[in-house]
């Protein structure tokens, strides 16, 4: 899951980028929605108020025209007009006023004189005393009177309207008005598709409503209507409430109609009123959803873009920690991340180089003294190790009686002896910067003048041999006291040989091949304890610096004729730590 959705950094970046994209968008949407709701509410409020005012105006106009029409029947003093004319006045009123079901005219004394009806039989001159009738009593006081709404046979709402003639001696006119005309006014008011107006009187009676069936339902909704009307304490305030059929509505009440105890409402279902806002919200939600989708993609790719290289770096660091320097990052782009990748790759390459150099150095150190190996490594003159013919001095040494010693001794003692032996020889060899090519059990082969040439190789080799002999002899006393019965001999030969590395990758040794190696080995085999035998070439080379004593000619295995051998007559060890300086090259 490198750099994938599960990594912590990825999640962090993903979350922040996502939030960064969505938060402003959501805020914007929220603010926009708030404003849209506010604006819509303001628009609806204005619409409801204007519709309510319009309904109120129409109702008032209707009522005042009714009043005017009714007043015209009682303009003259009663007695100045003939009965027939009163009758014609009444019929004229019915003719003019379609909403009127009947008209009753009473003389100035409040006695019924004319009654005209569209349904019932007419009455003339009945003289019934109407002074106790509220219509007459009230209109006498205030000249105009609205009766309460009454349901004729519990269904059709009717209302009585009374006027008293203004002139002295004028009579009274009482009309029964069918409220259908007002209902038509109210029904014509449409606010949107569901919005409408309605009139309720203070008793809760529904005077006008577009749903005629509801109006005809008599007093069935009284308490509901009163409950509906209760919160409307002042005109023109828009209230969010519930219509009596359970629909949530926005409603307002118009200014009251003078004289009538009617309350005119304009209402619209909240669902319809807020439909544009809802549509806007749905649109915004869709846009936000799409934006969220895009934000997810954006956040995913950006987070991946950032975390993937980091994960690769982490992985690379782990790989390099386990020594795999071949690891590389696919670094691209010119930004910080790209440059970081390039820098990482460069670092990995350099580490790899360092490691391989260190590996090579370790290989060189196996057969070269550490300082020589490092010198070779640092100066890069590895070509010195390449295969070539060189005049070299080969030094062989081993312990006398070692085979017998190993046969009769405990392994612990053998290993202890060998440990001391190599410790002693190793320090000398290292000091003389000679090349230890190989060792097997007690036998060692050391080269001088290869791969690094040195001046006076023969003398250098002999002086080293003398010191080696001295070092081992220092140990032999102790060993032989423990019954080891060991001795130490050295053979040295100088001559041309093929030198170079042999072996395979990971296990390369430096060695020399040639007759000189064989000769040195044989001389070693021929040497007694404490003896250093060397050939003529060595003797010739050191004759001016060391005391060389011929040791006769020896028959050596692999040599047809006896080989003249020499030995050091007087051991002349140089001061320790002053071997011939070693000059690299030429």
């Amino acid at each position, binding site marked *: 899951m490198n750099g994938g959705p599960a990594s912590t950094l990825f999640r962090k970046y993903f979350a922040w980028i996502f939030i960064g994209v969505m938060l402003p968008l959501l805020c914007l949407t929220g603010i926009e929605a708030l404003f849209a709701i506010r604006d819509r509410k303001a628009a609806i409020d204005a619409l409801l108020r204007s519709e309510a005012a319009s309904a109120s105006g129409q109702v008032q106009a209707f009522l005042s025209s009714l009043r005017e029409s009714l007043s015209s029947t009682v303009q003259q003093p009663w007695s100045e007009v003939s009965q027939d004319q009163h*009758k014609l006045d009444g019929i004229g009123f019915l003719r003019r006023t379609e909403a009127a079901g009947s008209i009753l005219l009473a003389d100035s004394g409040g006695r019924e004189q004319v009654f005209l009806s569209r*349904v*019932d*039989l007419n009455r003339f001159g009945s003289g019934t005393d109407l002074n106790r009738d509220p219509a007459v009593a009230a209109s006498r006081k205030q000249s105009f009177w609205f009766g309460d709404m009454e349901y004729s*046979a519990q*269904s059709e709402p009717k209302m009585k309207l009374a006027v008293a003639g203004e002139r002295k001696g004028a009579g009274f006119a009482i009309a029964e008005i069918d409220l259908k005309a007002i209902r038509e006014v109210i029904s014509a008011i449409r606010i949107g598709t569901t919005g409408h107006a309605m009139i309720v009187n203070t008793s809760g009676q529904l005077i006008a409503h577009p749903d*005629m069936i509801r109006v005809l339902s008599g007093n069935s909704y009284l308490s509901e209507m009163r409950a509906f009307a209760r919160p409307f304490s002042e005109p023109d305030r828009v209230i969010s409430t519930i219509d009596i059929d359970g629909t949530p509505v926005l409603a307002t009440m118009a200014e009251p109609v003078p004289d009538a105890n009617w309350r005119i409402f304009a209402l619209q279902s909240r669902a319809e009123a807020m439909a544009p806002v809802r549509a806007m919200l749905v649109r915004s939600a869709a846009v936000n959803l799409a934006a969220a989708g895009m934000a997810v993609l954006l956040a995913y790719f950006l987070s991946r873009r950032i975390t993937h290289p980091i994960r690769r770096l982490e992985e690379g660091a782990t790989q390099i920690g386990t020594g795999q320097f071949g690891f590389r990052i696919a670094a691209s782009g010119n930004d910080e991340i790209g440059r970081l990748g390039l820098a990482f790759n460069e670092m990995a390459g350099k580490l790899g180089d360092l490691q391989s150099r260190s590996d090579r150095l370790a290989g060189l150190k196996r057969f070269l003294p550490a300082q020589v190996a490092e010198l070779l490594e640092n100066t890069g003159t590895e070509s010195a190790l390449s295969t070539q013919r060189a005049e070299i001095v080969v030094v062989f040494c081993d312990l006398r009686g070692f085979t017998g010693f190993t046969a009769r001794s405990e392994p612990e003692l053998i290993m202890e002896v060998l440990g001391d032996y190599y410790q002693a020889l190793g320090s000398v060899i290292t000091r003389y910067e000679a090349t230890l090519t190989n060792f097997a059990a007690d036998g060692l082969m050391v080269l001088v003048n290869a791969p690094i040439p040195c001046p006076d190789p023969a003398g250098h080799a002999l002086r080293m041999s003398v010191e080696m002999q001295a070092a081992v002899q220092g140990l032999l006393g102790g060993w032989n006291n423990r019954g080891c019965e060991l001795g130490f001999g050295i053979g040295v030969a100088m001559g041309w040989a093929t030198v170079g590395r042999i072996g395979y990758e990971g296990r390369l040794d430096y060695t020399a091949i040639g007759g000189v190696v064989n000769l040195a080995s044989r001389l070693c085999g021929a040497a007694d304890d404490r003896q250093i035998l060397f050939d003529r070439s060595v003797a010739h080379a050191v004759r001016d610096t060391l005391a060389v004593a011929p040791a006769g000619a020896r028959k050596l295995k692999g040599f047809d004729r006896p080989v003249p051998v020499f030995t050091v007559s007087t051991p002349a060890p140089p001061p320790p730590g002053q071997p011939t300086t070693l000059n690299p090259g030429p």
Partner: protein
Amino acid sequence: MADLGYSKDSGVRLICKSANRDPEGLERAVKALLAEHVDVIVATSQSAAEAVERQSRSVPLIARRNFTFVSSLSQPGVSSSGIFDCAYQLTAKRMELLRDALPGLRRVAILFRPGGTVRENIVASERAARRLSLEFVPVPISAPSEIGPAFDRMVAAGVEAVFILPDLMIEDRIAAIAGLASERKLPTMAWESRLVRQGILMAYSCNADRAEERLASYVDKFLTGTPVGRLPIGQTTDFTFAVNQRIAASLGVVFPPAVLLFADELVE
């Protein structure tokens, strides 16, 4: 129905059946409607409503008719609703208008076809005549062939006007009746303003068009889920007084100004 937003695609099928002014045809029309398993039947007259009720008491019925049998108009609770057309009250009113139009009228013939609910109408007519101090002569006719002899009887009885009660057969022959009445110089009063155009002198009734419009809104309410029994019964508030002035002239009738003033429809 179209005004209420219904169209051919609203999924409402309207089936119209006419009785062709024949009582038998009425029964057949109702039977045909019931055979179609209609959801609701609209009856635009008292006789049609009665015909439906004779055949089915369960099918919802929306009618313009007499609803004196329900206890509460606002909550009828029966399987029919509609518009209460105040027919019997209007019968009395018609009688009054006949008298007002013909000052000095004393004797009136009441022309009707016996059977059905006409009885209540006869009773209402007779009661109105008595209240209006008119003498009345009931003239039943059972078949079209009896119309001629009936007029002979009326003339013999010395009637001065003919008061015609609603009936399909009579409506079917209304032109003939109007013709005979004109011949005999008898002013006529009928039950539906449209009859005035066929030669009847006067008619007073509720406004049929408006009543039928209102029936349509009942159907709408029914179709939107309100059971018929829960629909409050409305009452007619629109009335039409129609007068045929051509016939009046031919009869030599001069209407008093109050009557002319009251007329909604003057047929020349």
